[in-house]
């Protein structure tokens, strides 16, 4: 007999979702706001107790995406097998619609460095990321998405434009791309490249999800500025415009609003998601008119 499931369907719809963070656990669980889907960092749900109980409860009502921040796909040491096993167990338990990670590294010599650190855009780094993505996809037995980084440094050694690096990872491993338009906006400003050119260079068919978030502008004196990807404010007009361009280029995709610092009331986050939905709907109207 087929076992009936009481869960929301797993696939992530091509509408706006929000990143679920601890301050909103109770509100989302009890009030079930009208939002298309939720995304969480699996690192916050690897143990037992209240956190995973909440995630299992909301999973009954919403499609959920697992967006890793700790697997360190760019690590030359390879992936931490225990971390990968625990992620695999969580994937089995939650049955997420999407699983994603970052094109960056966060461990070195067995130490976790607690940030998404930038890789040099070199053939060695590309081979390293591809090797690790293949290990991840084999262990999880599914396609994953990899997210383009935001960064504050470039390396002298870099030889590959970042957009080509991202496309190559997708081509070589069969993974998808999580296109974070806020990250493109931040890095374009910090390193002086054209964000729209970046979007144009990504393979549209590989893009499986979009991210938007707020970032900060830090004045360094002497008229110098750097943009900080802090996810600590509302999405800027510049990033909304870039999202519209991304949707026009790639089509409608699941689109996440991330807010990780100075987390606002849930209503504020939902209003940001509504803004993303407006942009996604515009593309649907365009498509129908065409």
């Amino acid at each position, binding site marked *: 007999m087929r076992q009936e499931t009481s869960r929301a369907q797993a696939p992530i719809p091509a509408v706006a979702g929000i990143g679920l963070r601890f301050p909103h656990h109770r509100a989302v669980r009890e009030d079930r706001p009208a939002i298309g889907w939720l995304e969480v960092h699996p690192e916050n749900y690897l143990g037992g107790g209240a956190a995973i109980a909440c995630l299992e409860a909301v999973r009954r009502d919403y499609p959920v995406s697992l967006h890793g921040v700790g697997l360190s796909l760019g690590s030359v040491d390879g992936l*931490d097998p225990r971390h990968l096993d625990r992620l695999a167990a969580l994937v089995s338990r939650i049955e997420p619609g999407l699983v994603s990670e970052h094109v960056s590294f966060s461990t070195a010599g067995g130490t976790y460095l607690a940030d998404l650190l930038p890789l040099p855009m070199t053939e060695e780094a590309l081979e390293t990321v591809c090797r690790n993505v293949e290990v991840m996809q084999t262990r999880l037995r599914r396609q994953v998405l990899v997210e383009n980084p935001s960064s504050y440094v470039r390396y002298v050694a870099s030889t590959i434009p970042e957009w080509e690096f991202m496309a190559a990872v997708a081509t070589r491993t069969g993974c998808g791309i999580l296109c974070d338009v806020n990250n493109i906006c931040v890095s374009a400003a910090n390193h002086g490249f054209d964000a729209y050119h970046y979007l144009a260079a990504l393979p549209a068919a590989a893009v499986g999800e979009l991210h938007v978030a707020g970032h900060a502008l830090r004045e360094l004196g002497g008229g110098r500025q750097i943009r900080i990807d802090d996810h600590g404010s509302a999405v800027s007009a510049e990033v909304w415009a870039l999202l519209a361009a991304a949707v026009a280029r790639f089509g409608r995709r699941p689109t996440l609003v991330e807010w990780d610092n100075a987390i606002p009331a849930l209503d504020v986050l939902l209003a940001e998601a509504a803004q993303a939905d407006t942009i996604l709907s515009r593309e649907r109207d365009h498509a129908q008119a065409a």
Partner: protein
Amino acid sequence: MPKLRDLQAGFAEVVLAGRFDALAPYLPADAIPPEDRLAIYRNTARAVMTEALRLTFPAVERLVGRDFFAMAAARFVRQAPPDTADLAEYGVALPDFLAHLPEAAPIPYLADVARFEWALHQAATAEDAPSLDADALGAVAAEDQPMITFIPHPSVRLLELATPADAVADAVLAGDDRAMAAIDLAAGPRRLVLHRGATGVCAEQCDADAFAFARALFAGATLAGLVDAAPAAAGTLLAGHLASGRIAGYALQTQTGEP
């Protein structure tokens, strides 16, 4: 061209030790000095690690203040950085670090408060498991019952502290100055059995005999051994652990080595 391994090792020096020179030669010269760029990563990583410790040790932070805690965390991070991306597992070494931190010497119970909070945190985040229904033991044949051993629920932690650090933690987190003033710091050791139940983590204080029983029980002593050690109290104590949900299962010890 630097090898990726060298560059990643250099970034570890930047993040953990603030050694910007480890990476600066790999960065192009431009209007913003490499140190300003690298400091963003160092500061973010330090903030993330400190916040993880702050979430696990809130009473320690309340006792020493935010600035002291940040100073101690910065030193601790450098000495014992995390080895896993699951930061809920980070901090096991903080109690002993605090015990040897010269600036913390005026608060002799600080390390015990940290030990208590670490045990609470472990109980709160331990793997899920169902609790054993006592009726299931009825299925064991009478002649096998003496050889029953009990499997603790993954959240069970036993803690023996030299000071009443659990009371200190409760008082300081509640902001209850009267309760804090009433604590007798010389009252002798505290013996606690912690576990996560249906309503959250529970820390139960017990006397020396009950603690010795719990130690034996959760170390895998047989039912016969438990009864021999505490003939009068074993039944009541075992029933209490079962009713609280601290036992996840049982096994039968095989009599290996016997004819």
